[in-house]
């Protein structure tokens, strides 16, 4: 019973790494993918107002959240790693706060961007405040 169990464990560990390598290649969305994904946000999101817009404390909180949740893919300065999108691009910066919040909540699962709906809405708005502070 034990030996087959640990053979299975080794096989699964290999599978994890193999699948991981494949997902690593595909996980990061390219700029075009992000543009298309943001464009899918419903029209009503364009009028959504960020309750934390321009608040220094919220921007600092957003920076902390970015370091905890986003920097591993987008890099510590949000310039992108590999194919992970550079968040300083005008395409991202020109999106409305509402579109960005919608995109954070929904993610782009098929292209590797996770959904951040597990973060409370307030924290997503703080992240948006930080992203908008790049301008």
């Amino acid at each position, binding site marked *: *019973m034990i030996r087959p169990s640990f053979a299975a464990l080794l096989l699964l560990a290999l599978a994890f790494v193999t699948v991981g390598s494949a997902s690593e290649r595909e996980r990061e969305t390219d700029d075009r993918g992000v543009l298309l994904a943001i464009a899918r946000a419903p029209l009503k999101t364009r009028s959504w107002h960020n309750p934390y817009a321009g608040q220094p404390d919220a921007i600092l909180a957003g920076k902390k959240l970015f370091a*905890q949740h986003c920097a591993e893919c987008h890099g510590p300065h949000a310039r992108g790693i590999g194919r992970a999108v550079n968040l300083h691009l005008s395409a991202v910066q020109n999106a409305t706060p509402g579109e960005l919040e919608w995109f954070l909540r929904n993610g782009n699962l098929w292209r590797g961007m996770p959904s951040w709906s597990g973060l409370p809405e307030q924290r997503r708005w703080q992240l948006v405040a930080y992203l908008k502070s790049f301008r």
Partner: protein
Amino acid sequence: MLLLAVGDSVHASTLQPARALRICLGLLYLLCAALAAPRELAAQETPYFVTYSHHLEEPGNLEIELNSVYGVQHAGNDYIAPWVEFEYGAKAWWTTEFYLDWQGTFNDSALFTGFRWENRFRPLMREHWINPVLYVEYENTTAADKTMIEVVGFDNQADYAVPNSQAQMDHQHELETKLILSSDYKGWNISENFIAEKNLGHDPWEFGYAVGASRPLRLAATSDYCNFCRENFLLGGEVYGGLGTSWNFTRTGTSQYAAPVVAWQLPSGVTFRVSPGFGLNSNSHPFILRWSVSYEIDRFAHRVRSLFR
């Protein structure tokens, strides 16, 4: 610790205080090492032990989780059943997880009880009011398994009174499926799971359920890095139990539990969870205590590949 426990599976031995102390010290060492790690990483997790939400592991990340449950038996011979989880985000819509289970029963023995491999898939690519997740798991365990990761059918606390030497002879190959429904609303997560489990050798389908709700103590983040901020704590509760079998779909004669849950997420990527559970009828354990320590490794696959460059 792993080797020690594997050894237990081959030569089941009496659970001794010295061995339990060594295991605890090992866990403490791991914990201190994790706390001291200068990292900034936090997963978006719910604090439940039994209930699943629609939040999957971030792609490429590996979470290692050490869990344990202490169960009180009506007729004595309480037990501790630890298990280790390796949770990997294969895709943003697919999380795969591997479990290794052990148990130690007082006045009996300690032994390895098997493994599980689960997969969770999000069929819908966008957020909705209710988000479904499909769950499929294969279990290769023995009847001595006491981790109680789910409660199904007519699971009864008296089943756990069977001596380990006898229970470990009963090998179980099971397929477990779940329909996970989960919603986020104003900082709350509300999740409902419907469980259907089948022993592949015999027996009818067994059913169970789990329902949970949780919320962070503070919704907005503070600008400071802190371990004890309210935003790092999640509180909630879960209720779970059996629903009989395909031959007799009922709550009568099943075991039922209610358990508050608390999670403490540190900025270093370590999460602690604890949950005292209470049996709601005479078929249930009167009291169970679950706890866990987890650590998330970001970009795991990338790190592994870089070792071979």
